């Protein structure tokens, strides 16, 4: 008895299906790694911008390794001291002077962000572990830039809140 033609095609070669599935998975992985991906965001460190739970973010991986990021952008980064990753806002790029601690503390020391690094801080200052704790972060640890917020039945693009002087006036 002959199989129906689509099953014959599917099962004709013993490994064809697996090879095709493998290639397809590899392509998807590359798109998620170098293109765009959507991940859940959680935690209190970015509170006014993102809720503690229940929100997804759209990440552009084309800004990985800090390519073309600017001060004010939200980035996803690999935490330098442990496993896992987080979302923070870029406050300083190489050469910028930043405060080592929050403005309300007594420590008013400043440092210059070293070459190839950036200074990232959460929006919720008291509840954020960021560059104030582990220092400047290498740009190579930046995985991508947050370009959108996804809530159930709601999507919103996220733009850099800092505007150039001409645009603002």
């Amino acid at each position, binding site marked *: 008895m002959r199989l129906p033609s689509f099953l014959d095609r599917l099962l004709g070669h013993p490994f064809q299906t697996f090879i095709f599935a493998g290639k397809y998975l*590899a392509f998807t992985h*590359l798109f998620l790694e170098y293109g765009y991906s959507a991940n859940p965001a959680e935690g209190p460190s970015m509170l006014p911008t993102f809720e503690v739970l229940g929100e997804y973010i759209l990440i552009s991986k084309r800004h990985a*390794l800090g390519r073309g990021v600017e001060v004010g952008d939200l980035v996803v980064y*690999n935490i330098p001291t442990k496993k896992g990753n987080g979302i923070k806002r870029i406050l300083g790029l190489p050469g910028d002077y930043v405060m080592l601690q929050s403005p309300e503390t007594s420590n008013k020391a400043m440092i210059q962000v*070293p070459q190839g690094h950036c200074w990232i801080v959460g929006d919720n200052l008291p509840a954020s572990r960021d560059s104030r704790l582990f220092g400047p972060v*290498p740009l190579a640890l930046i995985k991508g830039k947050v370009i959108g917020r996804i809530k159930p039945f709601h999507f919103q693009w996220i733009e850099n809140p800092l505007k150039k002087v001409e645009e603002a006036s």
Partner: protein
Amino acid sequence: MSTKFLGQFTHHLIRYATWLPPLILFNTHVAQVTLINGPSMYPYLNPQYHESLRRDLCLVFKLYAQWNLKRGMLVTFRNPNDPEKITVKRIIGLEGDVIHARPPYPHEYVHVPEGHIWVEGDGEKSKDSNYYGPISVRLITGRITHILSPLNRAGRVKWWEHPSHSARA
């Protein structure tokens, strides 16, 4: 005739192109063959850097590269000063170690912080942790496990025979 040829040509082109994503995935996450530039690992890699243009061909193993790090291993990592560059150095200290740093570093003794390692090149002409400080483990992309060319030095990298494998404080 010519349309038939073009049709077959594009068919084969697309068939081979579908193998690119698995190949890229393999190179970024499993293993890669790469050429070593420069004198920073001088007596061990590129021993003839000042005599010829020949460079060493090495196998970089990338699976679980950030796990189970030991002193003496040769690792490749994204340069903290330039995210686009990948650098090869030897691990001298793991987290918690106290390292005797060399001149470009401002302090004489360094305590390697959590989630960081201290890397140094074997040669004198090396910009290593003495220059940019301890680096985050998350920057590591792979380990050099084999030298493939030149043939007289080809073989496994015996990192456990390096003196730094026994602790240095």
